[in-house]
């Protein structure tokens, strides 16, 4: 097992876990994990564990609460809808050539020490929180992998020697923004993910690799049998995260992380999309549920 000179900033959930599991299955661990622990509940936005008398207890409680909340749907689908889970995960594993036991690691209770020797837990109120900036500054200089979504504050990109990798679940530069996987199917007729250097702009940094994925084909009767929101959750629990993880693995395997060089995007190309309306998403998902 090789240890990569990489610090993974973990926003817990299937995406962060898929990155780490894909690297692990590829024979890589990482130098450090910075585990972000939100002070507020991911679903309700309320303060977590304010009633606890000791700060470290509040951190531990908040970590447990977010672990349960942010992994709720993947675990629910795996346990309550095993046929759907089996079909999606086996089809992706077979099409894309990876070991389906990878999903066991994604769904298991958190075990960050499996992936690294160093885990630092940082309780934050958001990305503007000075504790977030301080935690990243302590790690610098190093290449970081940001596993969350949205924009980071511009100041973090000024930390000396810091480079941020990110994987977008769509084909850059054509498809930027939210629901990249679905919009890539609409605009390009393809599935793909892009590894790039994150900067203060949305999905506009230098590109390292655009990887196309064969479109999986799930049983069409799921469309009639299942609530479309559940199918959407299944896709974003088991398909999108692994596309990202495999793309990262491909970049890592392509050369020395410290030597990576991307190619710039033409910002005038492409469209920045917002979340797809559920009625449009239902039509697009039929491209996946068509067997």
């Amino acid at each position: 097992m090789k240890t990569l000179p990489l610090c993974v900033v973990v926003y817990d959930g299937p995406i962060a876990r898929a990155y780490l599991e894909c690297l692990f299955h590829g024979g890589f661990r990482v130098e450090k994990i910075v585990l972000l622990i939100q002070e507020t509940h991911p679903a309700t936005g309320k303060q977590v564990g304010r009633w606890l008398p000791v700060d470290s207890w509040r951190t531990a409680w908040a970590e447990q609460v977010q672990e349960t909340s942010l992994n709720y749907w993947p675990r629910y689908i795996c346990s309550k809808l095993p046929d759907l889970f089996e079909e999606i995960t086996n089809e992706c594993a077979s099409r894309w050539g990876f070991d389906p036991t990878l999903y066991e690691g994604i769904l298991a209770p958190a075990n960050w020490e499996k992936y690294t020797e160093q885990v630092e837990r940082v309780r934050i109120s958001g990305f503007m929180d000075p504790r977030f900036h301080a935690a990243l500054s302590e790690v610098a200089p190093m290449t970081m992998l940001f596993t969350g979504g949205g924009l980071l504050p511009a100041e973090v990109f000024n930390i000396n020697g810091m480079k941020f990798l990110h994987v977008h679940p769509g084909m850059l530069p054509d498809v930027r923004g939210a629901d990249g996987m679905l919009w890539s199917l609409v605009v390009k007729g393809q599935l793909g993910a892009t590894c790039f250097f994150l900067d203060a702009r949305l999905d506009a940094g230098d590109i390292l690799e655009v990887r196309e994925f064969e479109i999986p084909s799930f049983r069409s009767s799921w469309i009639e049998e299942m609530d479309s929101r559940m199918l959407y959750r299944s896709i974003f629990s088991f398909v999108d995260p692994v596309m990202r993880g495999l793309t990262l693995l491909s970049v890592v395997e392509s050369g020395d992380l410290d030597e990576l060089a991307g190619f710039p995007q033409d910002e005038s190309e492409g469209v920045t999309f917002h979340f797809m309306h559920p009625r449009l998403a239902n039509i697009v998902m039929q491209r996946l549920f068509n067997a």
Partner: protein
Amino acid sequence: MDARTSLEELLQREGITTDDVVLLDAVCRKVDVVGRVFVAYKDGWSRRAASTEISAQDYLMLGECLFRLAGSSKLAGHAWRGQRTKLQNSALKAADLAISREQGLQTPAAKLGDDIIEAFRLEFNG
């Protein structure tokens, strides 16, 4: 300048410019992300110039404008496919906003929604 008038003017003009695309992006952002459109904006649509939200009827008309633009010759061809579908998406969301503001608009908003879905399905399924 209000959103619907700007879009109506855009529909009347020949072709489409970079500034037009910036305007469309701004309108889509208001509808899709903010979920509210105000009656006037300044500084290139970055700041609202009024505290009054447009009416439910205006949301519906905004949705119709976006849908008409998506289907117009300005955005014909493969190169504009992304922009077209983005506008259809926002038009659908504008129809939802109209219904959420006034239940009485259910019938025309549902009709607009069905038209958008039909156009999207036709293009997506080739």
